[in-house]
C-alpha cells in the first residue's frame, strides 16, 4: 500500500522537501493576501494552542494555501517530572485541527513540576537522562499518534557528569524511539563554538537518514555565542549548511527569524540563498 507520510517518505516523491519560513504576526497579511513563494510555513505551536479567535482563524486560512509544520517550545521532553498532560492534550487538538506535515520540539527541558522557565534548558548527557527522554518521547508520540521531530538546541554550558556527546545522545534517542530529527545548523555552530567540539564530528555522528528538516538562523557573537534569531544567517553557518546538504537526503529547510524581523522580501532572498546552496551541494558527490 502506498501512503503519503511526509516523515517516512512512503510516497512516490519520497520525504517532503522544500524551503519555508516561520509564520510570524508581522507577515500575516502577506501570507493571507499574496502568493508567498515558499513550500511551507512553520508555526510556533503554543501561539495557536488557544480556545479561539483571530490567530487560529489566520492559521487555518494559511493552512488552506500551503503545508504547515508545528514547532513547539514547551513540551519539555527532558523533564524528569514527565510530560504535562494538559499541554499534550492541547497540542494534539491543534495537530488534529491543522493536519501539519509534522510536529517538532527541542531536546531540552523547560519546566519542573513547580516552575516554567520558558527557556530551552540544557540536559546532562547521561544514561539516566537518555532513558528519561526516550520514555517521554514514547509517551508524546503515543499520545499524538504520530512520530515527532526533535531539534538539537543551542546550549551555554555542559555538565561535569556528562557521559556521552550530544550527537551520541541524539543518535541513541532516535534509534530507541523512532523519532526523526530537526537539524538546526546554527545551533550546531553555536554549541560547537561554546563547548569546543567539532561541528563536523557532530554531523558525522548523527544518523542523517533520520533528518527531515533543517533550521537556519542568526545568532549573537561573543565569548559565548547566543542563539538569538535576530539577524541574518552568518557565513560560517552557510558553510556548515552546505556540508550538511551534501550528506542529507531530501529535507525541508527553513529560516528562523524571531526578533528584528525584516520585511518578507528580505527573508525570501535569504531563503533563496539556502535553495542555491542546497542545489549546489546536491550536484557534488556526497562527502
Amino acid at each position, binding site marked *: 500500500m502506498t501512503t503519503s507520510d511526509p516523515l517516512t517518505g512512503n510516497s512516490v516523491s519520497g520525504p517532503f522537501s522544500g524551503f519555508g519560513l516561520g509564520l510570524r504576526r508581522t507577515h500575516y497579511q502577506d501570507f493571507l493576501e499574496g502568493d508567498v513563494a515558499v513550500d511551507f510555513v512553520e508555526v510556533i505551536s503554543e501561539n495557536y494552542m488557544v480556545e479561539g479567535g483571530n490567530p487560529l482563524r489566520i492559521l487555518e486560512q494559511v493552512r488552506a494555501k500551503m503545508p504547515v509544520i508545528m514547532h513547539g517550545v514547551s513540551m519539555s521532553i527532558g523533564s524528569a517530572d514527565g510530560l504535562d498532560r494538559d499541554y499534550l492534550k492541547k497540542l494534539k487538538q491543534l495537530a488534529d485541527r491543522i493536519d501539519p506535515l509534522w510536529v517538532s520540539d527541542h531536546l531540552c527541558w523547560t519546566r519542573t513540576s513547580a516552575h*516554567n522557565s*520558558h527557556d530551552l534548558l540544557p540536559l546532562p548527557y547521561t544514561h539516566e537522562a537518555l532513558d528519561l527522554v526516550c520514555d517521554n518521547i514514547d509517551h508524546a508520540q503515543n499520545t499524538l499518534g504520530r512520530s515527532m521531530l526533535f531539534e538539537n538546541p543551542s546550549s551555554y*554550558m555542559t555538565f561535569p557528569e556528562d557521559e556521552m556527546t550530544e550527537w551520541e545522545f541524539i543518535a541513541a534517542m532516535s534509534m530507541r524511539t523512532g523519532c526523526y530529527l530537526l537539524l538546526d545548523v546554527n545551533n550546531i555552530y553555536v554549541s560547537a563554538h561554546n563547548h569546543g567540539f567539532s561541528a563536523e564530528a557532530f554531523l558525522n555522528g548523527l544518523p542523517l537518514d533520520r533528518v527531515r528538516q533543517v533550521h537556519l538562523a542568526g545568532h549573537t557573537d561573543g565569548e*559565548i555565542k547566543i542563539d538569538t534569531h535576530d539577524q541574518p544567517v552568518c557565513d560560517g553557518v552557510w558553510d556548515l549548511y552546505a556540508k550538511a546538504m551534501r550528506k542529507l537526503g531530501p529535507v525541508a529547510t527553513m529560516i528562523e527569524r524571531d526578533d528584528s524581523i525584516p520585511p518578507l522580501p528580505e527573508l525570501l532572498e535569504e531563503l533563496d540563498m539556502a535553495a542555491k546552496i542546497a542545489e549546489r551541494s546536491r550536484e557534488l558527490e556526497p562527502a
Partner: protein
Amino acid sequence: MIAAQTLTLAEKQQEFMAQVLDDERALPDGWTPRHAAGMDIYRNAYRARLVDAVRDTYERTAKWVGEDAYRQAAAHHVITHPPKSWTLDHAADGFPETLRELFTNNPEVAELGWLEWAMHQAFVAADAEPMDAAKFGEVAASFAEEDWASMRLTFLPGTEQLPITHDIGKLWRALGDEQAETPEFTLEQPLHCIVWREGFKPVFMQVEQHEGHALEMMRGGASYGEMCETLIEILGEERAVAEAGAILGRWLHNGLIASVEK
C-alpha cells in the same frame, strides 16, 4: 552541597531551576566560572523573555507609566510570580494586582492594566455567535409570564468586567494614538468596565454601577427575576422596571449574550 554525580536528574533540574530564578544563589559544587558564565545567560534570557512577554499584553500600561517604571514593575512581578504554566500568556496573569501594589498613588494604572489583560483574554477566547435581538425575540415569544423571572443568560466566552474609578476607556484610546494629549481621566462617579469580543475584535464599554452589578449577578448564574429585585433595591421600583429592559436590550444590541434559558 552534594556532588552532582549522586543527585537524580529531578534533583539536578530543581537546582538548575532555582539557579535560574535566583541570581544570588550559590553555585552547585563542581561548577566552574565557565558554568557561572553559562548560567548568567540563562538567567538573563529568562528575565528578558518574561518582561517582554508581559509587555505584549500591557503595551499601553507600559507606555503610561514609562519604560523604566514598567521594567521595574515587570521584573518585580516575574520574581514574585514565577510562571508555572506552559503558556507564556499566563506569565502576564496577576500583573494588575502587582500594579495595584506598586502604584498606590496612581490607582488608574492597575485599572488600565486590567483592561489590557481582559482584552487579551477576549482576543483568544472560544469562538461563539452572539444572540441578536431578533433571535431573542423568537425565544421569548414562547415565554409564559413566570418564565421571564426564571430566565438565565450565558455570555460570550471572554466576557470580563471590573468596577472602575477612572476613565480608563479614554486613557486606552489616547495611548493608542501617537498624536493624542493626556486626557482628563477622572470619573464623577464609579462605573463598571465590560470587555467582550465583537467578531474577532476585543471591545469594551463603561456602564453605570447598577448595570455592572446586574451583569455580575447574571454571569454568576442569577435569574432575571433576581437581577430585577436587586435593581429595585438600587434604583426604586419605577426606574428599575425601565432599566431592566434597557439593560437587556443593550446587552443584546452589543452582542454580549450567547444563549438564553427559561
